């Protein structure tokens, strides 16, 4: 399963995995957007944004990337189902996110936190991390 939601006393934990680092970033973004539970606008034109982020390490990079996408979604009232990673290294990502405007969201995420986040490759070669949303 690319992402699953687990209990946390006050907030929401999401476990994410991917066969590659690129897939991990894409799955984490899809999980974040799914949690927001967007109410789609009918017949809306497709939207697209470029996100470029640099961070001190790969874990911070993922959290900062998700926060940038979340902020854009909430600021512009949009949801992004598709991600194209143009460039990804341990401390830099450049990606295009695309999707649709929404009427509102069913759930709120105040922020994607660094708490418990740890991007790593396990012994099977899969990329994994936990992400905690402050809701």
């Amino acid at each position, binding site marked *: 399963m690319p992402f699953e939601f687990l*209990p*946390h006393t006050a*907030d929401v934990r999401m476990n994410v995995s991917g066969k590659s680092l690129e897939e991990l970033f894409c799955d984490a973004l899809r999980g974040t957007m799914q949690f927001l539970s967007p109410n789609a606008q009918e017949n809306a034109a497709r939207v697209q944004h470029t996100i470029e982020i640099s961070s*001190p390490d790969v874990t*911070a990079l993922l959290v900062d990337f998700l926060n940038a996408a979340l902020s854009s979604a*909430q600021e512009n009232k949009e949801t992004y189902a598709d991600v194209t990673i143009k460039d990804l290294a341990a401390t830099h990502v450049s990606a295009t996110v695309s999707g649709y405007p929404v009427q509102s969201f*069913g*759930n709120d995420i105040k922020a994607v936190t*660094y708490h418990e986040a740890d991007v790593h490759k396990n012994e099977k070669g899969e990329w994994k991390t936990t992400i905690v949303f*402050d809701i």
Partner: protein
Amino acid sequence: MFDISVLKETSENLWEIPKSFRSDMRVSALVYASEAMLKEISRDRSLEQLVNVATLPGIVGYALAMPDIHEGYGFPIGGVAAFDAQEGIISPGGIGYDINCGVRLLRSSLTLPDAAAHLEKLGSAIYREVPSGVGKGGRLTLKGKEFNRVLERGAPAVVAMGYGTKEDLAHTESEGCIADASSEPVSERAKSRGKDQLGTMGAGNHFVEVDVVEKIFDPAAAQALGIFEDQVTVLIHTGSRGLGHQIATDHIRIMMRAMSEYGITLPDRELACTPFSSKEGGEYFAAMAAGANFAWANRQLITWEVRKAFAEVFGEKAGVLDLVYDVAHNIAKIEEYKIDGVNRKLIVHRKGATRAFPDQPVIIPGSMGTASYVLVGQEASMHKSFGSTCHGAGRRMSRTQARRQVDVKELKQRLSEKGIVVNAGSLAGLAEESPESYKNVDEVVEIVHAAGIARTVARLRPIAVVKG
């Protein structure tokens, strides 16, 4: 699971994790709780998080947990930590993403018999007047200088536009404005997220609730606050919305990058901090203060909306809904305390904790369907808890678990049988906020009352709940 055998009860319902527990602790950690509560608290990571707070540079006295403590991210929710203004840090994680989330209590001249037959209509009117949910804008969209004025002047800025009175400001913590606020370190994205959110409630645990005063514990204090038995009151619980979330996100990122310059290493990234006296620390404080001002303006505008709903339903009979008090429970303030006989300027972080200065009203919202409390701060809070007390019931069940366990139809029926009218935008959200998801607020309040940091004045019972 935290091994509670390491905690020593230093006085009744006050427990200490000694500094010797972990080599990186700079001070001890203190927890206000009964033994039964402590067992429950130890099940999640909140005590481990409290120990982490005790390691932060410049922490003064102790890291403190209130009885409603539960696991957060970095700092626990229900915690207080004070840092020296010269040598200590400021940490956005010690305030939280919802800057100046807080509560205000309005009192009416109506009694329950006056309102009982109109609750459905009142609930609907409030639901209509106060926009709620995620991504829904409010009635006021401000831009440029007007928006910056709200960030820098807070509730007085919207009162100047006609959305309230000077009397309202006199009954608001810091009169609804932290003067150190600046709109400059607030990013354009944060401003954009907040531009249409003034006067909106949001979602999650935020609500507007009509209550009735069920019990008076302290008649003299209640009289001084204009509260009497059977009186209809209104509780407003919300914060700085997307603006505050973005300020926290932006500045945690800035601090994470800057920390190494100050030689700060942390057990958890979410504790990201820099010295208060640093450029980054000063900018965060000014931005946080702007977020806090926005939240006070937000609750002020919601007050105007609630007054409009009351007037719509009750006409002139509604009278004036006076403000009892408005208090923050996610904030950092510069305050002075006497430590070992010396006055020191401290940066007091309250994350899920309420200011409780002597004789200051304290509003403690309970869970939907149980009770909320009015207290007044006590002198002892100034030397026992950095002028602070608890902030609510505190969650005990995860939102996921609540969604699984709570039957929403049954919950609505149960609330209806208790005479509570519910208007909620999201049924799943309603399940998450069910009474069984929270600790017993009566027990939480009993602990702070017995500790002498805040005295109970009155208990409120909900009669109409409005949620996003």
